[in-house]
């Protein structure tokens, strides 16, 4: 028994097992916790920091990188906050728990690791200004949200990357109020989709200098999924044209709920409502011991998008306590580009 069991049992004790962005408790009822409200405007830099009255929250970075060897790499750095009760306290008995996930993916290999910590003892946490998010030695720190240093280490990898924002923050949905089901479940959700990245990956073969683009998602809520939703497929794509697309598909027992955001090269965002994006799996893979779609067709007619999305490494399974698939993808078709794909609920 380890924390895996603790959290799994915690998860099972709650109704509607689901894992958006791979985390648990999303389908739970929000007893005692705050609930997102439409019309509450995001407030920076404070909202870069934690919101302990909400059940669940994350700081989620993915990056598509190219090494000096000319090959493609992807990295993930995620810090989740999960509240057992809607308040904070000092010491070991704080009801706020932290979980970190980090991964490096190349066409041949996929390394990942995870960390757990409690709030209240300084082992993990987030401060808004100056910005610092950390769990153990993993950290995302900077004088402000536009200039960040990102580090993580596992038993087989480390990375150390500098991120510089080249555009504005993007609020999803209705000014950051992002609806997640037809029944009205929602979260607060904003992104910084345009960080320029440089740094080094340290892999079993040795260090590899890399450059590329990173995308940061911030989201918090207390019940963003409805009870019958079993998983989600989430795309963050950066096209060679400088345009960007965030799109997700929530799989219910009977129907799908889709949503997304179109981001112009200057950072101007326009929300995409339910039913406008269609994403269809075209190829399934069993490399990770389970059937996972690793190639997709995606259409967004209003932006003349008709693309094919393919995983860089089909084996990018995150075998963490809450398991899911997360890895870099290549885009071809009407638009060319790169991005990240996350799929939950396939295990």
């Amino acid at each position, binding site marked *: *028994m*380890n*924390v895996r*069991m*603790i959290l799994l*049992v*915690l998860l099972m*004790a709650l109704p509607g097992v689901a894992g958006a962005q791979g985390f648990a408790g999303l389908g739970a009822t929000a007893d005692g916790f705050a609930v997102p409200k439409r019309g509450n405007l995001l407030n920076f830099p404070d909202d870069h920091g934690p919101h302990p009255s909400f059940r669940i929250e994350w700081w989620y970075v993915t990056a598509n990188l190219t090494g000096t060897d000319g090959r493609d790499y992807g990295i993930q750095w995620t810090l989740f906050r999960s509240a*057992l*009760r809607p308040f904070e306290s000092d*010491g*070991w*008995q*704080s*009801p706020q*728990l932290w979980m970190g996930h980090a991964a490096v993916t190349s066409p041949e290999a996929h390394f990942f*690791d995870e960390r*757990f*910590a*409690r709030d209240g*003892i*300084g*082992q993990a946490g987030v401060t808004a200004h100056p910005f610092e998010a*950390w769990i*153990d*030695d993993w950290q995302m720190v900077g004088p402000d949200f536009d200039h960040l240093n990102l580090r993580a*280490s*596992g*038993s*087989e*990898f*480390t990375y150390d990357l500098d991120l510089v924002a080249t555009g504005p923050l993007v609020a999803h949905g209705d000014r950051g109020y992002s609806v997640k089901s037809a029944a009205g479940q929602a979260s607060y959700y904003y992104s910084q989709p345009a960080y320029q990245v440089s740094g080094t990956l*340290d892999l079993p073969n040795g260090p590899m200098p890399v450059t590329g683009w990173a995308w940061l998602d911030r989201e918090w809520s207390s019940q963003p999924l409805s009870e019958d939703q079993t998983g989600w497929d989430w795309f963050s794509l950066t096209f060679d044209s400088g345009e960007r697309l965030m799109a997700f598909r929530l799989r219910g027992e009977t129907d799908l709920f889709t949503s997304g955001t179109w981001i112009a090269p200057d950072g101007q965002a326009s929300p995409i409502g339910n039913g406008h994006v269609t994403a269809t799996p075209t190829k399934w893979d069993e490399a990770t011991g389970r059937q996972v779609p690793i190639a997709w067709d995606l259409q967004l007619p209003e932006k003349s998008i008709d693309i094919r999305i393919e995983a860089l490494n089909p084996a990018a399974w995150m075998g963490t306590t809450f398991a899911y698939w997360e890895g870099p993808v290549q885009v071809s078709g009407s638009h060319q580009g790169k991005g990240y794909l996350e799929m939950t609920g396939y295990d």
Partner: protein
Amino acid sequence: MTGAILQAIWSHWRRHPLQLATLLSGIALATALWSAVQAINTEARANYASATQQLAAGSLDRIIDPSGPMTLSQYRILRRAGWQVAAVREGRLAVAGGRINLLGVDLLSYPTLPAIAEASQVQGIAPVDALSAPGRLFARAPLAERLQATAGLPPVIASDQVPVGTVLTDIGTAGALLGEPEQISHVVVLSKQPKGIPPLDQIAPELRRISTQGDGGIASLTDSFHLNLTAFGLLSFAVGLFIVHGTVGLAFEQRRPMIRTLRALGTPMRTLRRLLVVELMILALIGGLVGLVLGLYIAGALLPDVAATLRGLYGAPVDGALTIRPVWVASGLGMALIGTAAASGQAFWKLARLPLLSTPGARAWSGQTQGSVARLAVAGLGLIGLGVIAVLLGDGLIAGFALLAGFLMGAALCLPFLLSHLLNLGGRTAGTALSEWVWADMKAQLPGLSLALMALLLAMAANIGVGTMVSSFRLTFTGWLDQRLTAELYVTARDDAQGAEIERWLGRHSDRVLPIRALEMEHESAPIFVYGVVDDQTYRQHWPLLTPAEGVWDRVVGGEAILINEQMARRNNLWPGDTVTLPPDLTYPIAGVYSDYGNPTAQAILSVDELARFGLPVPNTRFGVRLPSDKVATVAQELAASFDLPPDALIDQANLKARSMEIFDKTFVVTGALNILTLGVAGFAIFTSLLTLWTQRLPQLAPVWAMGITRRQLAGLELLRSVILAALTTALALPLGLMLAWVLLAVINVEAFGWRLPMFVFPVEWAKLGALAVLTALVAGLLPARRLLQVPPSDLLKVFAHER
């Protein structure tokens, strides 16, 4: 047809119920002792396994702060540097009139916690409740019930996965219950560490990493204990099999006419053999089942003592309760079947070679020729040689036991040869024809009795050997306690501040105060406790040095040299004249080695000033107090009252000695019990062998009787024969037993416990044991003698008339 044969075979047991009972008891006794030992071992191992799973004891390194408890900020420093560690908070909690061991672990990062898994899966308890206030306590059922009835504690969950005598909880809950919630006792270094973390001395030089290498002591120490028990179990099993062998031989001998008749009637040998095998296997199963029940009872009776032994001697947590495990039942029955098969192999072999219409031999049918006795002796010498080679080539406990096994079995095989030569010598002293016949007759009976006598030899040797070891140990231990526990009162303070106050207070109320100050360090990646002592006559006069020399204490208190305990000396092969280097780089010559029984870890003694040179804060909380013995009680009372000390903070010497001796005696209760049982089984083996021989002896006795020796005389001679053979065997068992004691003390003990004991001899004990053996033989011979007394003269006459 088969039915008729079965009936014929079975009729034998109906006519000889005593024989059936003997056979079944032989199988049952062998199985019982073996499976009792197995049950004890399995139970104890299951207990360790649960403790190891809970505590990862022996598998994960620890990090400690030698100056005291760790702080949250030290934990944070480790974590922020990437070190994957789990915080542990241990303490004693006063509840319900007693004190419990509270073990708080960081449930979020601790690697394996079966208690929590079981609780959540079986009892539907959400682990999240264990993480946040008020938390949950996990304990074994009896303790859990007691705690549940106690007000002011978090909810208690009963779990068999928690080590005995421990209450497991989250570190947060432990902090809330014990006070000082930010205090951490130590951290456990998890097995998976990230790439490129900085070394400990760069981020927290004040902390020490304690490797579990060598500290994984529990496993190796308890292994040796269980190996000991297993050896005993096997010995008893072998002795039990002698009975089975004797009875099966007798039954086959007596059924020869029946077998002959059946074959003459046309029963194929194969059918007969098959049916006899089935019969024996059924008997083996019945005997085995009885043995299992008996074994369970023996194990149940012995286990509390074994548990006490293991707890006392090694601190290994073992429950006193027994669970029936399928493996145990299977292995017990398996042993019964295999053992019966092995013990009756010879009988079947003879049966197969039995000529269709054979006539009975004049000598006992299981008899060996003089040549085969010599061959056995050569094989025995070979076994002894193999044992010696094992000890010369290998080392460790297994080699020690190989030596023991070689000696015991080898000596047993040599026994017929030795006895037959002794009987030859005896024959030369014979003055009359009758006495000459008695000696010759004994020699003639030897082959039939030799197996039983071998059993007696083994049982006697084991008794002498183990008895000598235990008594030597007890003498040494008592002497050592007297030397070591010289202070009249021992006090433990809560912290340094209270320690200083108590020291001042004692300065006014006692003759002398001896501070007991120690640091836990590392030496060759094993933990070592280094004590700092002040110069005092107490040490100079009493300290149990194995290597006394002039000026040892002058050198130690002068800061020039160090003393180490025997365990460390033997483990690292360090002796006076060698040096010890302690971290960071202080080197001391070894002035002496002292005995330190009952302690698995390395220990050393320096002057208290030298201890300060390590630059680490040395806790000053324990004191030995010298004062007149009649003042101990008063001073202890006043001390407890003035400083509000809990009862276990004050220990008086008499009490401590009594407690130590109690643990000691419990340790060897088990060996004593097994000893007596083995001897009993051997006596039974003699009895069955004599019974077996009885049937075959009539043809040999009848001519003597016909020559005018009365039946009463014959019966007396019968008893005399039994006694002489037992006495000769006992005499031969003595050197073997002493040899066994020596191996136990000088080879097995050093491997198992890390210390060597001086051997003391106890002739009075041997005399008693010899008398017991003779008595056993006398009792075993009574029934055959009585039968002889009552045998109708017509039966004796028949010997001359026709075949049996």
